[in-house]
């Protein structure tokens, strides 16, 4: 069963210089209560994918493919349907919570506003609910917090407030866009623990967007890897971590230093990540790929099921690499 299905999604923005591709081919799905990590470097299109799911693409964006939430096509929704979908079905948290909260209103105002507007609750009922939510996300003295202003809270506390706000409407899907990137590591562990508990307790599905493959692999059921506006691999997280199939995933895993040992040299892929609009005809990773053959520059690979086990990969040489990963060139 599928809660969210993204099917060959492509998005381009209309600029004065012409159309510019932002997403080229994004395909993955999320089941109810499932946590899916969406991993990629800057410009790979992870955040734009989240915006497309929330129906928040910039005006003038051109979209092909489909985003289907619980049977309904998001791009096909009317304004009213889209409003109801955003208010009830999905919620979003961001990297910088302070950019998404009104600095001159109290935490209580922020948390109760949606409950009172969308659900028509009384002030007292909404405040009681907000207090409960703050307790759930691990903030001490929740009643006192409601009277505080955003600047009185640390980044980790503010992110808890954002999670509480996201949960207020009891959504079925949480879009979490780098929610721990700006936080200290100990606070990150805390926030991930809270998200994990809430997810299990409420059956909440999560799309967890991050640049940190280790974090995604450790906390999500499945992980999809994006490069230049495309999903290039999608596997259960344990499989992805143990047996990455796409050369880019392999490169990401190997180029990150580990806490257990010091490498003589980090096997960094040459060059820089490519934005979608600069992607060539063939595979976008060709120029940086140690496995690339002539055909890679011209033939565009599509996501194909793995020969063994669940998951999909978009690489012409996937089968050979799976058989013997050391075969380069």
């Amino acid at each position, binding site marked *: 069963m599928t809660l969210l299905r993204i099917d060959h999604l492509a998005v381009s923005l209309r600029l004065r210089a012409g159309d510019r591709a932002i997403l080229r081919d994004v395909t993955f799905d999320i089941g109810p209560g499932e946590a899916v990590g969406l991993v990629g470097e800057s410009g790979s299109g992870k955040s734009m994918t989240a915006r497309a799911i929330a129906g928040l693409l910039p005006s003038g964006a051109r979209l092909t493919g489909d985003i289907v939430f619980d049977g309904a096509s998001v791009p096909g929704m009317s304004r009213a349907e889209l409003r109801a979908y955003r208010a009830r079905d999905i919620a979003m948290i961001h990297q910088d919570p302070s950019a998404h909260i009104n600095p001159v209103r109290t935490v209580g105002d922020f948390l109760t506003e949606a409950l009172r507007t969308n659900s028509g609750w009384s002030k007292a009922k909404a405040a009681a609910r907000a207090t409960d939510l703050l307790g759930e996300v691990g903030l001490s003295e929740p009643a006192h917090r409601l009277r505080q202003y955003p600047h009185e809270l640390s980044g980790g506390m503010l992110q808890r407030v954002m999670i509480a706000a996201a949960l207020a409407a009891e959504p079925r899907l949480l879009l979490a866009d780098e929610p721990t990137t700006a936080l200290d*590591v100990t606070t990150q562990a805390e926030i991930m623990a809270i998200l994990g508990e809430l997810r299990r307790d409420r059956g909440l599905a999560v799309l967890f967007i991050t640049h940190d493959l280790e974090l995604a692999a450790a906390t999500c059921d499945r992980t999809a890897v994006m490069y230049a506006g495309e999903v290039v691999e999608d596997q259960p997280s344990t499989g992805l971590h*143990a047996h990455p199939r796409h050369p880019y995933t392999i490169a990401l895993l190997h180029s990150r230093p580990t806490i257990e040992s010091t490498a003589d040299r*980090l096997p960094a892929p040459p060059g820089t990540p490519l934005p979608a609009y600069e992607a060539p005809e063939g595979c976008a990773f060709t120029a940086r790929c140690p496995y690339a053959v002539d055909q890679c520059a011209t033939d565009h690979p599509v996501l194909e099921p793995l020969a063994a086990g669940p998951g999909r990969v978009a690489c012409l040489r996937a089968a050979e690499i799976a058989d013997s990963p050391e075969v380069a060139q």
Partner: protein
Amino acid sequence: MSTDTPGAPAAQDEPLIRVDALRKVFKGRHGRPDVTAVDGVAFTVGRGESLAVVGESGSGKTTVARMITGLEQPTSGTIEVAGRVRSPGRAGAAERRRRARETQIVFQDPYGSLDPRQRVRDALGEILALHFDLSRAARTDRVEELLGQVGLDARVADALPRAMSGGQRQRVAIAKALATRPSVLVLDEAVAALDVSIQAQVLNLLADIRAASGISFLFISHDLAVVRQVTDRAVVMRNGVIVEENTTADLLDHPSHPYTRLLRASVPGPGWTPRRRSAEAASG
């Protein structure tokens, strides 16, 4: 590459940097109480050594870096570089230039240290002209040497910062820092904002630079995996004090202070299960 070391001569076994009882108090403004950012910190950095200062926000690690590079005045305590104790108070122009040939700093965001209208080649030439008496030809050669050292091609050398990628800009920032031939490079979260594949390239580059030049690193970071890759020894700071010091390998393999253990346990990896602390601890 040349290996001459600037600054006053010091015995080879003497540490290059010796910091003792270092303290920094920021005066509270608008009736707020004073904040003690660094409270009695002591450590040494040997010649060619790479020392990590590990900590989270508010630990005081950046304030230590800024005091060592002269961007901040210590409230008390001593900083000794290459056998000379830094005198308290504001330094004059000659003293600042001398310090610039001892310590240089690279920040997380290179944008702040790059002039948006200055081409890379000109930025490097300007630093060389300020610090060294070089002929035009020698200066051009040195610029090429610096560009080669950080792996930038001629095309980038003639570009403006906005036309560069984040990784290229950070390479430029490193080249600028190396231009004065400092004996210590202070790297304040210098690879934290880079994409994983670019971060690996820059970490390799930093290892090459240290191997070739014998430069010392003071590596300020919250990232334990990165610290393991590029440092020999590490101190862990929390709330302005050092809570643990050891070789980097031993510190990470056998953390002894509870806070170091918490940091270590907070690093995600296979089989990682993040745990909630108590609500009280969480509110801090």
